[in-house]
């Protein structure tokens, strides 16, 4: 390698700022190229993690379910599965067997019961009395209510002895019993004697002895207790192995003449499909903008190459005159800038991985995905390096080999006149049309809305369109700016001339800066909007953090609330009618605001109107009308006519649907007794609420929690997509600042000479500073104003359209973006000020004679 190339890395040190900017450009480009697949992969991981919480613990792998079969058939199934499981990487299966409800005599009295057994099942029950010795465990309700002592042998001694008493299982069923809750949880809405108490056998020997009382099993379940998959790849691998195991088991059973004996399934497959869809939606939605941002980064590398060519022109000319070719000169640029670029690129890849928890969805990523993502990052680095080499090589070829101007100017002019904004506007329109249908199919528990990823790119396409239009208008205005005669204000005139002189660069910086500000606004707006929409909708739907229905006596106060459910709770009664009829809610004004979710409501206003309807009235019941004012209040059986004394647009639990709220303090005990449905709202977690009721032995059906009442995945997909858009906005903003600094630095010498002469001709330094402030402030100001205006507007329009649960109020609202706007304006101001000072600095210190001689 020639000496000039060997010593080139040392030459890079002559301009540390350029080396720094080079490293930063590569860092941002590679960061984005790596972050895009990482973010996508993490979204799949987050989707898997979210879905795992809603799937039963023993359904993360293969699940075999057989109904109405003999004990020997159940054994055949479990033996077959056990024999094949190891081949597919699964461990020992967990076999559960459940009989139909039968009758047996215990301690002289006959009871209905269901015999249950599951491998290791007693470990998942809470033993209250007795031991784990072989025998049967009775539930507390059966054992205590009927005073059945331990050691009792049922069915006249035919059954194994009762060796323990366990705490009965209640809904919501604990995780280990989730998939067989119909077999293991006593239905408390009806008399448990009718449906049977659940008697568990402690081991298979005890079960085999006891099961002789039954001629068939109602269900046999063979499953595997596995940890939830952390990543999509792990889940897919497990599902593939599960399908293979199922196929083998079914084939074996078929070969033995037992076809159709058992139904094998992979319950987690639906979650995998959803996670796949979430990953695809997020990936495809962020891909266009990510590609655009990476291309902007590569363009930054190209700009650095041009700047390097200008700075090293004399050296390039010298080496070219000595016979070195364009390729070699391109490699000289690589030798000088390659190291900072490679360093920046590697740092970008590592930073993308390291910061993933900060910017990405809260999901684990398949480790192999990092290498794929690092491959993309490396590809972007190689592309940047190739651009560096080729831009220099092409320029050197054109200048020192062709020696003539080519058609480049004409091509550049053609590119400038192409109506790019029409293309981006077409994408925006297509996205908008698809967006109109968004969320239309979503219902509770439904999978992700069928959304064309194009719809998710719509807001960014709008911002880009506005950006290009503004840039084009600016370009045209600058072309016509020679007509401006503002010499009475020389600072302004000079600023206009400088802008006009570098209008191509100005337009480039403007588009990137506007895109940065616009994507920041739209990304933050939509992502925050989705987050708050999920919170508001779940809050509105449940009415509080958690809720359970309670018996009428609890509602009327005849039965006191359990000790653990007295603080932060409130009773609410409801008269429910057929669909379309308004609901009449009975609210306790003293406790309601302590328990209810009032996220989007004005607490004070609710408190005021509740107080207004709290006093009893003669012959009527004062009521608050909720939602759109409709016909006259309905006649409620058992209540006097309702008299509307206040109105609210929406109310917790009722949402914005038409309805009425009355105060329980305005009702008599007799009127309260007419309320058909009572619910306890709680500001605490559901677990605490249900535990309190369970411990008190009170029925508490329809337990609901804000955390799982709605499928959050559709909200998250939009949120994850736009949080990445925000990240892109930040990166683009940094790129815009870097380009501005490089542009100012590149023009430093030219500015220095011109400005130095101006200063020597009598222009005051303050006027020179004002001139640069006007020039850079125009770019920064225009980008900020247009970016914020387009970003906020499109976010305000889109945030409602992205609502995946449109049937449930409230409609998502644009969050308060004041903080973001203030930050953007502040950062723009600081950048403009610093770059203007940078531009002026050289003029104040330069010596005109030195500059002229150079």
């Amino acid at each position: 390698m020639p000496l000039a190339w060997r010593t080139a890395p040392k030459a890079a040190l002559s301009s540390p700022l350029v080396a720094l900017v080079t490293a930063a450009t590569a860092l941002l480009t590679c960061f984005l190229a790596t972050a895009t697949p990482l973010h996508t992969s993490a979204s799949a991981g987050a989707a898997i993690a979210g879905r795992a919480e809603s799937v039963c613990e023993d359904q993360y792998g293969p699940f075999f379910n057989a109904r109405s079969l003999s004990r020997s058939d159940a054994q055949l199934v479990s033996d077959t599965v056990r024999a094949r499981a190891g081949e597919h990487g699964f461990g020992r299966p967990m076999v559960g067997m459940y009989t139909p409800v039968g009758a047996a005599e215990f301690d002289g009295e006959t009871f209905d019961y269901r015999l249950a057994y599951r491998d290791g099942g007693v470990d998942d029950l809470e033993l209250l009395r007795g031991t784990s010795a072989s025998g049967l465990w009775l539930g507390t309700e059966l054992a205590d209510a009927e005073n059945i002592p331990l050691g009792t042998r049922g069915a006249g001694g035919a059954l194994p002895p009762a060796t323990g008493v366990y705490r009965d299982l209640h809904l919501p069923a604990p995780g280990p019993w989730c998939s067989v809750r119909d077999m293991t949880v006593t239905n408390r809405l009806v008399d448990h004697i009718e449906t049977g108490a659940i008697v568990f056998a402690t081991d298979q020997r005890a079960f085999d002895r006891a099961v002789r009382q039954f001629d068939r099993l109602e269900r046999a379940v063979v499953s595997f207790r596995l940890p939830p998959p952390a990543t999509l790849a792990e889940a897919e691998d497990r599902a593939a192995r599960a399908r293979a195991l199922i196929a083998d088991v079914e084939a074996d059973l078929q070969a033995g003449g037992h076809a159709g004996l058992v139904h094998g399934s992979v319950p987690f497959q639906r979650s995998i499909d959803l996670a796949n869809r979430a990953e695809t939606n997020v990936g495809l939605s962020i891909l266009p903008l990510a590609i655009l941002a990476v291309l902007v980064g590569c363009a930054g590398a190209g700009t650095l190459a041009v700047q390097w060519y200008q700075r090293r022109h004399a050296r390039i000319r010298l080496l070219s005159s000595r016979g070195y070719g364009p390729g070699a000169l391109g490699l000289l640029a690589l030798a000088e800038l390659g190291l900072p670029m490679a360093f920046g690129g590697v740092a970008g890849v590592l930073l993308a991985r390291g910061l993933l928890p900060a910017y990405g969805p809260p999901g684990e990523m398949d480790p192999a995905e990092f290498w794929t993502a690092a491959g993309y990052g490396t590809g972007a680095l190689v592309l940047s390096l190739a651009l560096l080499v080729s831009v220099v090589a092409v320029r050197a070829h054109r200048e020192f080999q062709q020696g003539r101007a080519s058609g480049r100017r004409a091509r550049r002019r053609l590119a400038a006149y192409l109506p790019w904004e029409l293309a981006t506007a077409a994408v925006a329109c297509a996205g908008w049309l698809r967006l109109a249908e968004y969320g239309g199919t979503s219902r509770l528990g439904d999978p992700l809305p069928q959304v064309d990823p194009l719809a998710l790119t719509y807001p960014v396409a709008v911002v880009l369109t506005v950006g290009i239009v503004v840039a084009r208008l600016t370009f045209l205005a600058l072309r016509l700016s020679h007509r401006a005669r503002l010499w009475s204000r020389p600072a302004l005139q000079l600023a206009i001339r400088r802008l006009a002189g570098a209008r191509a660069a100005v337009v480039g910086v403007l588009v990137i800066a506007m895109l940065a500000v616009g994507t920041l606004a739209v990304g933050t707006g939509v992502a925050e909007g989705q987050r708050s929409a999920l919170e508001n909708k779940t809050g509105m739907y449940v009415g509080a953090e958690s809720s359970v229905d309670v018996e009428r006596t609890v509602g009327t106060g005849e039965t006191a609330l359990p000790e653990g459910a007295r603080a932060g709770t409130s009773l609410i009664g409801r008269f429910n009618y057929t669909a379309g009829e308004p609901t009449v809610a009975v609210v306790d004004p003293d406790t309601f605001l302590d328990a209810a979710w009032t996220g989007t409501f004005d607490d004070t206003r609710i408190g005021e109107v509740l107080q207004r309807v709290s006093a009893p009235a003669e012959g009527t019941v004062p009521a608050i009308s909720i939602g759109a004012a409709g016909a006259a209040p309905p006649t409620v059986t058992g209540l006097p006519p309702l008299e509307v004394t206040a109105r609210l647009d929406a109310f917790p639990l009722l949402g914005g649907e038409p309805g009425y709220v009355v105060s329980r303090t305005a009702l008599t005990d007799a009127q309260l007794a007419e309320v058909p449905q009572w619910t306890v709202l709680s500001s605490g977690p559901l677990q605490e609420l249900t535990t309190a009721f369970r411990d008190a032995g009170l029925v508490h059906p329809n337990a609901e929690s804000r955390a799982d009442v709605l499928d959050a995945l559709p909200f998250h997909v939009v949120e994850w997509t736009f949080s990445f858009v925000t990240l892109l906005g930040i990166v683009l903003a940094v790129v815009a600042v870097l380009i501005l600094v490089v542009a100012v630095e590149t023009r430093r010498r030219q500015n220095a000479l011109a400005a130095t002469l101006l200063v020597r001709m009598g222009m005051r330094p303050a006027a020179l500073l004002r001139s640069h402030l006007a020039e850079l402030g125009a770019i920064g100001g225009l980008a900020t104003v247009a970016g914020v205006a387009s970003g906020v507007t499109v976010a305000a329009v889109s945030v409602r359209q992205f609502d995946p649960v449109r049937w449930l109020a409230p409609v998502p609202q644009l969050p308060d973006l004041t903080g973001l706007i203030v930050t953007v304006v502040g950062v723009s101001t600081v950048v403009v000020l610093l770059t203007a000072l940078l531009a002026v600095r050289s003029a104040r210190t330069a010596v005109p004679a030195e500059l002229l001689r150079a």
Partner: protein
Amino acid sequence: MPESPTGRATYRLRSVCVDYATPAGPVAGARDITLDVPASGMTVLAGPSGSGKSTLLRVLGLVERPDRGTVELDGTDVAGLSHRRRRALRRDRISLVFQNPVDNLLPQLSVTGNLRAAAESAGHDHTTDDDILGELGLDGTGDWSVSALSGGQQQRLAFGCALARRTPVILADEPTSQLDDVSAERVLDVLRRLADHDLTIVVTSHDGRLIDLATHLVRLRDGALHDVPPAGDTRTPKGVDTP
């Protein structure tokens, strides 16, 4: 037609035209130049700014291709050669010295490093650094950074690099225009010494002292030859003046 006074010419230019595209339309950088550059001695291309000196030097340096006409270097028509062949000729046969002294050197290298890099570029493994530095009056500066040299010293080192390359042709574009009188005199002294090396030296200048050194003077105006001395009417090099 101006021809080589000795009959042996390194360059033979016939009806060479170079046009430049400008916003105001094409402008002739060189118009119908027919010229022989002798194989030894110093040819000076003289003329006012914009007369086409640098354009002609670029054509001779194989950086510029003429729009019309032929250019022969040692009997080879170089106008139609491939880029690779022209680069090979630049590498093996031509050294260029530019107007601005610092533009001729690699600033990250020492004085000796520059000589070595120059030699290396022409395919020579080693140089006689000390001999060259002695000839240039730069003894003892071998380890110096080029930024430690004065403008005149840098320009002399630039000619030293041309010597290190051992090419038969040295082209220099106004080598004294950026120097003060004392430094310029020292560069002229170097040029006088180079003229003794049986090299083809072509220099553009409007410096009278340099024009006086010419063994072959070509005057240009508006891109065309002007007041070319008839064949055989050559100037005799003046004596070498020491500053």
